[in-house]
């Protein structure tokens, strides 16, 4: 019983630790942000003072707007009499996030299925793996228009085509890590399952999938951000007007007069990627119950 009591004490102590760790992490985050801001402004200042030129690239307010101007532009109207830029961008971000989330889910599902099938057949693995690898060497920009045309001709909505393009970037890391992770089970745990006369299906769901979790979540982290990139790129050929991709294209055209708006759009796009990543990190904490030393 004393062990149970100790466990309870450790849990209570860890709640206090948690708050402290959270505060420290917030402080570190602020420090890093301040550091980045200082670096940015210092480079700009030095570049302008010395009239630094790197070939055609020149440091000035157009190529390197002040960070505070970028942030301030978020709270100015995007056009005369229109809503604030941040409202426009948040709408676009939400739209793109939906495409990316659908793409992530689809890609993860497809990737997991492919990885699982290949993990169970050396023959299929030999036959198909090279093509799966090859699929990722084809640039997404070359694939995207084809996907849009094919799916569009079948009457599928533009944002769903974009989701498919995002899935194209998502499935690969998941497939590869599933393949690797399903083979990561402890050989004695496999012997144990064999001693229970467990079928392939039970071994997969009761053992291999759990052993693969750290690998799967490593893949999900890569895929979460890749799906956002895929969605933004996919919006361009798909001609979907409501997302971040179109916003980037749009503000690109006005870069000469309002560079901070494109920078602000990039910041929002990055924020979407970070949110996606964090969702995966939190999901991992909730799902993966492991000994503390196993948690990366």
């Amino acid at each position: 019983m004393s062990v149970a009591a100790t466990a309870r004490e450790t849990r209570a102590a860890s709640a206090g630790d948690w708050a402290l760790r959270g505060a420290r992490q917030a402080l570190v985050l602020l420090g890093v942000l301040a550091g980045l801001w200082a670096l940015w402004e210092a480079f700009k200042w030095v570049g302008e003072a010395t009239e630094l030129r790197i070939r055609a690239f020149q440091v000035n307010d157009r190529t390197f707007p002040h960070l505070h101007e970028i942030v301030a532009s978020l709270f100015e109207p995007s056009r005369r009499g229109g809503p604030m830029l941040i409202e426009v961008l948040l709408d676009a971000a939400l739209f793109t996030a939906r495409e990316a989330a659908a793409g992530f889910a689809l890609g993860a599902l497809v990737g997991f299925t492919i990885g699982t099938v290949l993990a169970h057949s050396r023959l299929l693995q030999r036959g198909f793996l090279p093509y799966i690898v090859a699929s990722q060497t084809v640039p997404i920009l070359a694939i995207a228009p084809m996907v849009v045309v094919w799916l569009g001709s079948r009457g599928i909505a533009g944002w769903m085509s974009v989701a498919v393009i995002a899935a194209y970037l998502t499935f690969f890391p998941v497939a590869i890590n599933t393949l690797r992770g399903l083979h990561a089970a402890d050989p004695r745990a496999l012997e144990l399952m064999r001693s229970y006369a467990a079928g392939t299906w039970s071994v997969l769901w009761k053992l291999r999938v759990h052993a693969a979790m750290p690998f799967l979540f490593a893949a999900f982290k890569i895929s979460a951000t890749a799906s956002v990139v895929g969605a933004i790129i996919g919006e361009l050929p798909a001609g979907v007007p409501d997302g971040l991709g179109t916003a980037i294209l749009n503000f690109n055209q006005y870069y000469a007069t309002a560079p901070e708006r494109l920078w602000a759009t990039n910041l929002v796009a990055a924020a979407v990627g970070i949110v996606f990543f964090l969702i995966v990190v939190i999901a991992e904490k909730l799902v993966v119950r492991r000994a503390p030393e196993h948690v990366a």
Partner: protein
Amino acid sequence: MSPEPVVSLRQVSKEFGQGGVVALQDIDLELAPGEFVSLIGPSGCGKSTLLRIIGDLIEPTRGDVVVNGKPAHQARLDRDYGIVFQDAVLFDWRTVAKNISLPLEMMGWNRGKRAERVREMLDLVELTGFGDHHPWQLSGGMQQRVAIARALAFHPPLLLMDEPFGALDEMTRERLNLELLRIWEASGSTVVFVTHSIAEAVFLSTRVVVMSPRPGRIAGIVDIDLPQPRGIETREQPRFAELVRDVRRRLRAGGGFEQEGDTLEEELIVAEEGL
């Protein structure tokens, strides 16, 4: 022997690779119901391989393996044995209770029946109240007790143990030895126990099978006639020391000491310090 043996090995041999290493050669052995048999020998004598052959985790190259009156393969499919390894091999993502109920899930027991049996097993291994803990919250000895509870959860007639206490400290090991004897008496299972501790083998067993290496053979069988039930005082009896000496002599005669060199001799001497 009047009752039908639980395990019967006839002329069992195992070669690894193509015409390569002979791990086991012509093993003949019969285990009566309720026996506690230890397999002892130096590393490389094939004792773990023999255990896995009984459990149909490895196929023998030649020979017949009959478990519970049927071929070993069928016995595995019928879940006629439970197994415990040197490490507990608990699933981190399951609670202690869920680890113990794993084999019951495989056998299609319903939730209520599983919960009841898990409670019984936790009581048996004296871990009452630890069902909701996760494995990493337990000490090594407690983890191994969970592994034993899991192996016995479906009341298999045979329990296979592969150096189950080899990774534990001496104190914990002696305590678990006593506990294992109590569980063995309570469950009535037949036990095959692989170890390289002479003292442990003598203390626990009704028979000790001494094996010799390269190729793995049975060098001798020692009947352990120490009275049951055994306790702490068993190790202090003169008969205990005699039996330990007997097992050690047979190990030496089988080439267990000379061929392995110093490291093995040290290993066996250390193992005897439990005396």
